[in-house]
């Protein structure tokens, strides 16, 4: 066990686990997209960044791949974290505005404009489907193809492989396909639809119902 300080609260965690897991254990919500409990850690979406304080200096790290360490000082909700997360959120929304998961998360973070060009790529390349197919279904038929902005998720030669069992897991786990945003018009990249609903002021208890939902006492949009 190692002892660390998260948001000023002392806590213990099993060595080898991650800061994200330790924080969630304490009921602290850190938004995630490419993370899934049942899959290997990937660290690609960077939305789960936290501030790691070392003396006078600090750096931002993705909490889902950051192992807990003795004496670590972590801030999950500092001004710097919030500021950077919002820009990442804008980038994600601009590449994939039709995801309800993203729109909800953006609303919860208080993102109220997207200042970048909207690209409608319909995929945030979180790789959940890739890892699900490989690690849970032992099929391993989808993967990343190309690089940079041409990177996409695909099967080899775009053909349906024999090994695919039509399990549908890739669609199920996708934060874009499964929960599409149905708003008719986007204003500045935001759907706005959800924000017009009355916010559920508080969650009675946190059951980790969805990664985009806040904790007890926080303002939450459904």
């Amino acid at each position: 066990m190692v002892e660390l300080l998260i948001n000023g609260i002392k806590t213990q965690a099993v060595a080898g686990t991650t800061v994200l897991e330790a924080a969630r254990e304490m009921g602290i919500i850190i938004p995630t997209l490419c993370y899934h409990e049942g899959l290997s850690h990937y660290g690609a979406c960077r939305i789960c960044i936290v501030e790691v304080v070392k003396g006078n200096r600090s750096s931002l790290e993705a909490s889902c791949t950051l192992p807990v360490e003795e004496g670590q000082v972590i801030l999950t909700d500092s001004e710097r974290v919030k500021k950077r997360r919002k820009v990442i959120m804008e980038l994600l929304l601009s590449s994939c505005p039709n995801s309800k998961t993203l729109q909800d998360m953006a609303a919860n973070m208080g993102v109220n404009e997207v200042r970048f060009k909207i690209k409608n790529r319909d995929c945030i390349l979180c790789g959940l489907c890739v890892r699900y197919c490989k690690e849970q279904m032992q099929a391993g038929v989808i993967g990343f193809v190309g690089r940079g902005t041409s990177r996409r998720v695909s099967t080899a030669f775009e053909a349906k492989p024999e090994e695919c069992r039509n399990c549908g897991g890739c669609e199920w786990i996708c934060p874009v396909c499964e929960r599409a945003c149905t708003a008719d018009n986007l204003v500045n990249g935001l759907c706005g639809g959800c924000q017009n609903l009355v916010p559920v002021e508080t969650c009675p208890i946190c059951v980790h119902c969805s990664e985009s939902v806040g904790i007890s006492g926080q303002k939450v949009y459904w």
Partner: protein
Amino acid sequence: MIGTHEKVATIIERYAGNNDSLIPILQDVQSEYHYLPEDAIREVAHQRNLPLIQVYGVATFFKSFSLKPRGRHIINVCMGTACHVRNAQGVLKEVERKLGIGVGETTRDMEYTLETVNCLGACALGPIVVADETYHSQMTPGKVKKVLNQ
């Protein structure tokens, strides 16, 4: 005619006992065919017992691989920094205009394929155009015609 299976097998033979050699194998396959044909990629995956998507992913990730057949002549324009500050983009535009194709494309008669490279490390001589392994240094848009005529 030797089939793809045998050709790929001969190449893979060279790397027997070395598990780290997917990229060198694909490079050898590419120099055999001038590009990476689908059945050759499938053969590599099959014979090396690798997931097809891994081989396909690698083949599409690295710049040296082409999944499309390439022309008889390869025109490579260096887009390194030193070439850039000496108007490499002007040279590239002129090559594109003269050949009527964009970067990564091949002329319809399969004569020319136009590619760019990030730096050939011959920065003193920029801008550089490599036409079939012959280096042409200190290029200008005006010299493009001469190089292509050769």
